[in-house]
């Protein structure tokens, strides 16, 4: 028998619920991960079983699974967050945290050198496509701004914790390990979308003094973050045990906060610069 549309929809939503559970439990300890995935699979199965018994229609069941899935996403993320916060161990700083700062610096340098090739890139098909399309540029710009919010927002939270202005009861290491993956993710999107924005009109950005200022500050900010992750944050466990953060680290965090704020201002002023 060929399954009808609503049956296929039910299978698809059941798959979606399972896929989401797989995604947000990825990387957790085996018993926790397996228990949660099994629990969701069982819940979805019970719902599908009612359809099989004829107690409800497959379309309604599919809609219910989908709604329950989407309405529960914030709680799933918070559950993961809470689990991470409760079980994080003070291990060494992972390699990708070191890569975050270096990534900012390298992308800043890349953009700077790309600016010198602006005459060449401005005529490229990619540049023309972004520039001439009605929706590509606004979409990229929107993604860029959202990613900046995530990147700078989460980085600022880490800096504020190091400064001791927020989350004082949470160890610096826990805040770093929980938030810096989001900083890295945000950074990746910022770099990619930023490169596309630059590609839209390289000639314009190459001659813009605010663009130069932004790139310069990105370079400094990236090097500061890299130095912090490479040298300073390796001692985060010691700070948590001692109960205070050294003045030098707090100065670096304050500097980082100011710099990200200035980078946003410079980025905004690019639109008005010549």
């Amino acid at each position: 028998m060929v399954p009808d549309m609503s049956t296929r929809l039910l299978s698809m939503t059941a798959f979606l619920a399972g896929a989401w559970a797989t995604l947000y439990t990825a990387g957790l300890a085996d018993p926790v991960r397996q228990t949660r995935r099994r629990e969701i699979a069982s819940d979805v199965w019970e719902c599908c079983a009612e359809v099989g018994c004829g107690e409800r229609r497959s379309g309604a069941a599919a809609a219910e699974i989908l709604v329950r899935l989407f309405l529960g996403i914030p709680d799933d993320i918070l559950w993961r967050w809470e689990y991470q916060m409760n079980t994080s161990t003070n291990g060494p700083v992972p390699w990708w945290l070191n890569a975050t700062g270096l990534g900012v610096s390298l992308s800043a340098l890349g953009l700077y050198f790309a600016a010198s090739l602006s005459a060449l890139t401005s005529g490229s098909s990619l540049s023309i496509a972004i520039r001439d399309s009605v929706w590509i540029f606004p979409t990229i710009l929107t993604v860029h701004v959202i990613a900046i919010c995530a990147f700078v927002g989460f980085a600022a939270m880490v800096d504020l914790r190091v400064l001791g202005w927020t989350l004082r009861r949470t160890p610096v290491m826990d805040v770093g390990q929980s938030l810096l993956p989001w900083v890295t993710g945000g950074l990746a999107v910022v770099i990619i979308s930023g490169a596309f924005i630059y590609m839209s009109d390289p000639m314009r950005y190459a001659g813009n003094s605010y663009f130069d200022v932004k790139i310069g500050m990105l370079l400094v900010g990236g090097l500061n973050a890299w130095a912090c992750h490479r040298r300073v944050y390796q001692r985060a466990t010691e700070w948590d045990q001692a109960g205070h953060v050294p003045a030098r680290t707090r100065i670096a965090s304050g500097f980082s906060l100011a710099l990200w704020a200035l980078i946003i201002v410079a980025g905004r002023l690019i639109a008005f610069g010549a």
Partner: protein
Amino acid sequence: MRRKPGSLVPLEIAICEAASVLQQRGISQFHGYSIAKELKHAGDTRLLTAYGTLYRALDRLEQMGLLRSQLEDPHIAAAESRPGRRLYELTAAGQQAIADAAQALNEARHRHTKRTQRMKPIKPIKPIKRGWSPT
């Protein structure tokens, strides 16, 4: 907003109450879907509680010691060709929490009644004259 340690949010109270209802019906162990259905029935809502919201609350209740859980014997699940269930059970602390919540609710209702009795009756609003305009 940070909640007071040991206090329960309405969903957690509702889960404990639903668990208690199931227990009275002779179902001492329940799984997530059955509690979601019971919550829907008790709350008279159209939708079951979202997956994330429900299982996060169940996790919190277990951490508080109001519920305890265990994974179902895999042979039973295999015999019925379905995924294994996580079975929850209301603890004595959970039953106490329901009683405490009910008492707190009664006290709040009592306070509210006393407050409303002390309030002066509202004067009736004069009807607006016909033809009145703000200009």
